[in-house]
């Protein structure tokens, strides 16, 4: 078939339009598929790299492997942590339930671009700092972007959540898991459950709160885990016994 004859025999305009629409739809389908691939896989890859660098960038002294049991930890209140600048990484969090090598950096703020989408866990500004009276409140992705809180629903009452700053360990213990609506900001109140606007009682307890999305891949509700501080100790003293399996695994 010669080129000239081919161009002469043009199909009807409606047929050609249908062809173009069909090709556009196929293209759209491929683009949606690419987006899903990017969201579910590539964001993890990217955030994983950034998180790895963030952990290395901490450049903190290795704690002595000596395990310190709760009875040997200081009785006095823990030292205050200076409020960090927005986006600054100031702590890391270790959760043996999530794996013996689980460690994720904690940065100030819960903005998506600057903190959460980098695979880090974000600290709600204006909530308490680690170890302080009140509620040390954190947010993290449960799916995508490194999914630091992917296994949040596996946490059981009594599980340790260990927070480390440069010089101090803070050992919290899970007390409660619940599912709330996104608007229920009382979960990050200085006393969890205290209604917004209610008079603040004298603070006596040191809470930790983790928030993430629920159900997975949805934003309809939030999965919340509360805990309280059970002990603290200087990093120079050794490693909290709550991290014992991790320490054993390293030997």
């Amino acid at each position, binding site marked *: 078939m010669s080129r000239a004859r081919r161009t002469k025999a043009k199909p009807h305009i409606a047929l050609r339009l249908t062809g173009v629409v069909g090709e556009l739809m196929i293209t759209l389908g491929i683009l949606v598929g*690419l987006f899903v691939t990017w969201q579910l896989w590539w964001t993890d890859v990217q955030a994983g790299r950034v998180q790895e660098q963030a952990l290395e960038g901490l450049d903190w002294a290795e704690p002595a492997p000596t395990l310190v049991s709760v009875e040997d930890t200081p009785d006095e209140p823990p030292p205050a942590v200076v409020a960090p600048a927005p986006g600054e990484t100031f702590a890391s969090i270790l959760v043996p339930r999530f794996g013996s090598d689980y460690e994720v950096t904690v940065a100030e703020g819960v903005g998506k671009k600057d903190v959460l989408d980098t695979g880090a866990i974000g600290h709600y500004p204006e909530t308490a700092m680690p170890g302080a009276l009140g509620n040390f409140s954190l947010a993290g992705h449960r799916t995508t972007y490194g999914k630091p809180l992917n296994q949040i629903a596996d946490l059981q009452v009594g599980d340790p959540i260990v927070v480390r700053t440069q010089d101090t360990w803070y050992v919290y213990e899970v007390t409660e898991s619940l599912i709330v609506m996104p608007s229920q900001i009382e979960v990050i109140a200085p006393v969890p459950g205290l209604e917004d606007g209610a008079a603040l009682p004298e603070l006596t307890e040191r809470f930790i709160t983790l928030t993430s999305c629920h159900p997975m891949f949805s934003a309809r509700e939030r999965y919340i885990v509360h805990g309280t501080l059970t002990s603290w100790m200087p990093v120079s003293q050794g490693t909290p016994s709550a991290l014992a399996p991790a320490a054993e695994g390293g030997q």
Partner: protein
Amino acid sequence: MYGLLWRLLPGPAWLRVMILLVLAVAVVLVCFEWVFPAIADYMPFNEQTVGEAR
């Protein structure tokens, strides 16, 4: 649409295939680097926090 693209490309078939491959990779790159991160901001399933979006 794609037929027109194929006809507009120069060279023998293998060269056109190569050019199209390069174009496809470029489109994926642009999407992954700029387009998708921008769209993701408007996707409701990326919210992890309580209270208003900050």
